[in-house]
């Protein structure tokens, strides 16, 4: 995909999104003027979506006229190296969140750190494992103990019982 195609796609998607937002703001809410009281609940989001629509149409028009630097560029939107490092990172983050639902955040964070440091970063096993253990431990003491914000633990909750007993 070239930068030119990417800008076209983005403005079309933003146009569709603003139409969706306009429809959603009008859904069961008053987008108009209630006499004597001013705007209804849907007024502000609705007209903002209209502004978003107009600005996206303006970008689309400028794309047709080749007025923006992006619309004149035939370079690749994301080059091969970028796909590799950024794409892998996004995938790793996606699976980190997905795994957090089932296995809890601590186990998922450890897996994420190990994967990132050892396999994306290519660092030594010693460094990867040290950070994999140290960072979640730090997070645990900072968030659970000092700030009393429990992070999701999913099915790994029983593993933490001894720690709870020790701390509280």
């Amino acid at each position: 995909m070239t930068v030119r195609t990417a800008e076209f796609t983005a403005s079309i998607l933003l146009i569709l999104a603003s139409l969706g937002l306009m429809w959603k703001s009008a859904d069961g809410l008053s987008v108009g003027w209630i006499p004597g009281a001013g705007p209804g609940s849907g007024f502000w989001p609705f007209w903002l979506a209209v502004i978003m629509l107009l600005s996206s149409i303006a970008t689309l028009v400028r794309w047709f006229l080749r007025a923006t630097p992006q619309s004149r560029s035939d370079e690749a939107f994301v080059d091969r190296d970028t796909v590799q490092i950024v794409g892998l990172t996004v995938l790793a983050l996606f699976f980190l969140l997905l795994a957090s639902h089932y296995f809890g955040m601590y186990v998922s964070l450890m897996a994420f750190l190990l994967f990132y440091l050892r396999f994306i970063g290519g660092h030594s096993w010693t460094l990867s494992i040290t950070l994999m253990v140290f960072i979640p431990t730090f997070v645990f003491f900072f968030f659970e103990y000092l700030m009393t914000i429990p992070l999701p633990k999913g099915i790994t909750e029983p593993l933490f019982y001894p720690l709870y007993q020790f701390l509280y």
Partner: protein
Amino acid sequence: MESILIPLMGGLAEALQPLNLSMLVIGCLIGLFVGAMPGLGSVNGVAILLPVTFLVPPDAAIIFLAAVYYGAMYGGAVSSITLGIPGASTAVATVFDGRPMAQSGKADQALLTAAIASFVGGTISVVLFTFFAPPLAAFALKFGPAEEFALMMLAFATFVGLGGDDIAKTIGSIAIGLILATIGLDIISGKPRLIFFDISGFFHGVNFLVLAIGIYGIGEMLWTLEQTKGDVQVHRVRAGLGSIAEHLRRIKEYIVPASLSGLLGYFVGILPAAGATPGSLMAYGMTKALSKDPDSFGKGNIKGIAAPESANNAASTGSMLPMITLGIPGSPTTAILLGGMIIWGLRPGPLLFTEHPDFVWGLIGSLYIANIFAVILNIAMIPLFVRVLTLKFTILAPVIFVLCIVGGYAPTQTMHDLWLMLLFGVVGYLLRKLDYPVAPAVLAIVLGPLAERSLRQSLLSSQGDPLIFLERPLSAIFILVAVALFVYPLALRWWRNRQRDDSAVPAGE
């Protein structure tokens, strides 16, 4: 005079309390580090660390975050000089002369210049801040909802008129931020709005931190991974006590441009769309234009390092002025601080000076002290920072991602917000590649609820008559300036095109 000095003394005492002082020193250290890392600047540091500050009371939290903000301005120069990559966008102009100076083996002098100039700019701006803030807040007490709304429109208009980005994309970005702020329950009627696909997570709205950490944490890291491909090249620095002694004799070479740049940076920093990056570029341009020897700039002129470094520190203080006095952030970083103040239960705006004087004066006092600590820590730790910069980015990146995820979970404690954060991060990264500015969206999501409330309050009081914004003189002035800022770039383009046509005709004949 006395009405300022007495509370200032109180503020200094407040900032020197053990908890506040330790927050300040830790904040300065983290800020220096965050600023020095390529790809991370003050805004990223403040966004990622805000959730962590729920641990301490608001007074200490704001001092910590302001110290991070401040330290980052100092730290930005370190990577500009040693790597030739700006440590943050605010230190872009420092590369122009900092890099050549480092290449000629004078990296130590360049780093010291950056530190001392930052101190000069920081001190000038903090003093200006102290004397400007109370009168401005007193003046702003007269503002009703109509003025508040008009002022916010003015803040957004500065992005269009002065931001320098594509106008249509800037407006789109503002609109997206404002719409995201409307998700959830309507504050006036209590009706649910924009609950997409009936997902219950949207009922509590989209916390501004979800967008801020998404864009400035995850999105920024993706951006930096793309730019550096996980690798950086460091320039060698040799620094010792001898360098400091040598440097003390050179301060007089740049003290005047640094002071002027500090003044300029402060006033540029007050404007929401301008801030530290354009402020430092303008200061660089001004110093070069005023110099007797403009050709030496870009080849390692010491003034070319002093000017932008002084200006970016001054601008960061300047951007706090409208945040504290008017409740309008002067930069993306202060937008996040403002959002933080709302989370801590403070109502930003002119009343802050009368209702929470400890908070405001503690912050002001801490700026004085943070300035002193930042310059000392900066100079003392130059060797360490240079070592840290040799770390591979693939070590730092996962650690920052972990902080983003855990920090993003803290404010609302739902997985829903984490998914949104990842989405915003990726979409923000992709849109940024297409030149959509992201800062207006972050400002908009913070100001959105306040803007809508003041709009609807004004219209309720005028029985739905929109002319209220023009009937009240102050609000009319704000609206007129806002309209002028909207029209200005369009008029400028039209004027240039016309001139080009005029000059093109005789050339063609």
